[in-house]
């Protein structure tokens, strides 16, 4: 597998097999793809098509069963490399920011504290950790001292995005970020992500069911039966 300059992620023949009793479930079946730095890639497909599994593997949340995975020129899996949970955590906190369908904000912490939460565990060197500027950028500065229960779903996802960005990740992984939002709020979140990609060149890898949101990225990959199809 050739690894070109400017490549953020490269996967070759990536396979993930789960075992349920004696049954083998091939969630991902030999996916090969390259994602360049600054790209906004959307994965779409029906439930069980393997899109979340692929994003989880690309995001170093778990190891594949076979294949090769490179991250910014570094081998993460394959050719004899299998990283343990600690090493994967180190990569995750250096490289990735994650947002999820269910936001996962801590209900007893304010918006500001939720955004600052990752800094309690790790602060990347050279970053200012300026939570207020981040919240202002996402239009949430007026809700800084509110609890998650006091803000809307769209606002909660904006807070989750701010939290994912607080350590200045190289790649933002978004798993169904609009799954719990109405059409209007989904559009707003889509615009926020598009804006982040265009303005700051943030690489975004997104899984979505929503075709309108999926098309916001410059690249759309369709997933079916554990395989990736790109138009």
């Amino acid at each position, binding site marked *: 597998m050739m690894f070109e300059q400017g490549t953020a992620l490269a996967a070759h023949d990536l396979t993930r097999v789960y075992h349920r009793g004696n049954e083998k479930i091939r969630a991902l079946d030999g996916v090969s793809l390259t994602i360049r730095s600054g790209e906004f890639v959307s994965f779409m497909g029906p439930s069980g098509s393997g899109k979340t599994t692929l994003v989880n593997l690309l995001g170093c949340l778990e190891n594949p069963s076979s294949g090769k995975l490179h991250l910014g020129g570094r081998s993460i899996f394959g050719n004899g490399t299998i990283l343990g949970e600690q090493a994967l955590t180190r990569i*995750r906190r250096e490289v990735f920011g994650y947002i999820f369908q269910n936001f996962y904000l801590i209900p007893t912490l304010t918006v500001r*504290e939720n955004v600052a939460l990752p800094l309690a*565990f790790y602060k990347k060197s050279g970053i200012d950790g300026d939570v207020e500027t981040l919240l202002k950028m996402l239009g949430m500065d007026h809700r800084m001292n509110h609890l998650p229960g006091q803000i809307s779903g769209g606002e909660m996802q904006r807070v989750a995005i701010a939290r994912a960005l607080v*350590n200045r990740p190289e790649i933002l992984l978004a*798993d169904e970020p609009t799954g719990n939002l109405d059409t209007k709020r989904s559009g707003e979140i889509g615009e926020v992500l598009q804006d982040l990609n265009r303005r700051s060149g943030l690489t975004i890898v997104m899984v979505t069911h929503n075709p309108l949101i999926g098309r916001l990225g410059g690249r759309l990959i369709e997933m079916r039966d554990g395989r990736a199809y790109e138009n």
Partner: protein
Amino acid sequence: MISKFQIAFNNLLRKKARTLLTLVGIMLSSWVLVSLLGFNRGYEHALNRDIDNMGYQLMVMAKGCPYEAATMMLKGGGGLRYIEQSMVDNIACKTEVADVTPILMQAFFDPDKGDGGGIAGYFGVDPVSYPGMKPFLRFHKGGWFQEAEASEAVMGYEAAELEQRDVGDMIMVPEKNVKLTVVGILERTGTQDDGTIFVPLKTLQHISETDKITTIGIKLKKDADSAKLENVLYQLPDVQVVSLTQVKQTIIKLISTARVMVFSIALIALLIAMVGVVNTVLMSVLERKQEIGILKTMGAMPADIFRLVWTETLILCSVGGIAGIGLAVVFARLSDIVIRRILPYAPGGELVAIDLTLALLTLGVIVFVGLLSGIYPAWHAGKVRPMESIRSEG
């Protein structure tokens, strides 16, 4: 910036009722533990002080149960048998003896005492030899009796307070209708002397219509052979010798048996509280499994999560422990009253002595056992994998 401590503290606030119940459990264990340790220390200290403050090392009294006799002597009870006063001179001439003092203890029924009346105890003491054996007694007001047969009394601090008497006031000996003038009130000693009314020996003998005594207190010479003297004294007819050192040891031995039982109960209370801690923290971990997974995607290492959950345990145990110690200090007097009602003999002064060292020791035990209990939930939380939470999302 938010600290790990703040995160842990906030986690505990999520289920307030559960956290509160766990805290109550820890608080009660801490209360029981520190009170027992305080009792362990306070009782022995008070007993030592009571016995040392008697001023003599041996007592001679009429035959009977020696420990009951000694206990009554310490408590100031009545119902003892009498011995001849002539025996005092007989004992005083022994080579081991530094000084002797005759004592007559009398108890009269006072219908005005308490709800249904009670016993008023009087100590008839020799105005010459008794003060010499207790040079540490200080007067709050007044002084000792002026004459051997004076109708006078010296009251312990608490006795005077209870009877609301001052120097110059009169007290009436119940049953006998004899009036005595209070000539002195002792300073508080923290011993049984505080509740005693001292009367000149001859005056009390006159009131009681007897020329006998109940006890002879013997102060030994320095380095005197106590055992040898005890053997000699046992040759005297119809008397028994009580060594206060033996009494002390016997009482402590009796209390130790009860103490082991109570400590076992405290241990069980502690274990129950700690099972509560495990339950609370483990439940909280299981409920937050997805969230813990998300913290890991943010860069939290297994050790970070372990510490976070352990901090929750630490907060629970520290707050519960401190609250329990606070309660024990506040209600030490109440514990004292309860213990005095239960025990057959309780020395004067503070029975439950809780100081800073003891408080810190108890807190240390509670926190240590709590942290041990927190290991499993913290380990369980530390090994949650981010994928588990994300996959269970749907």
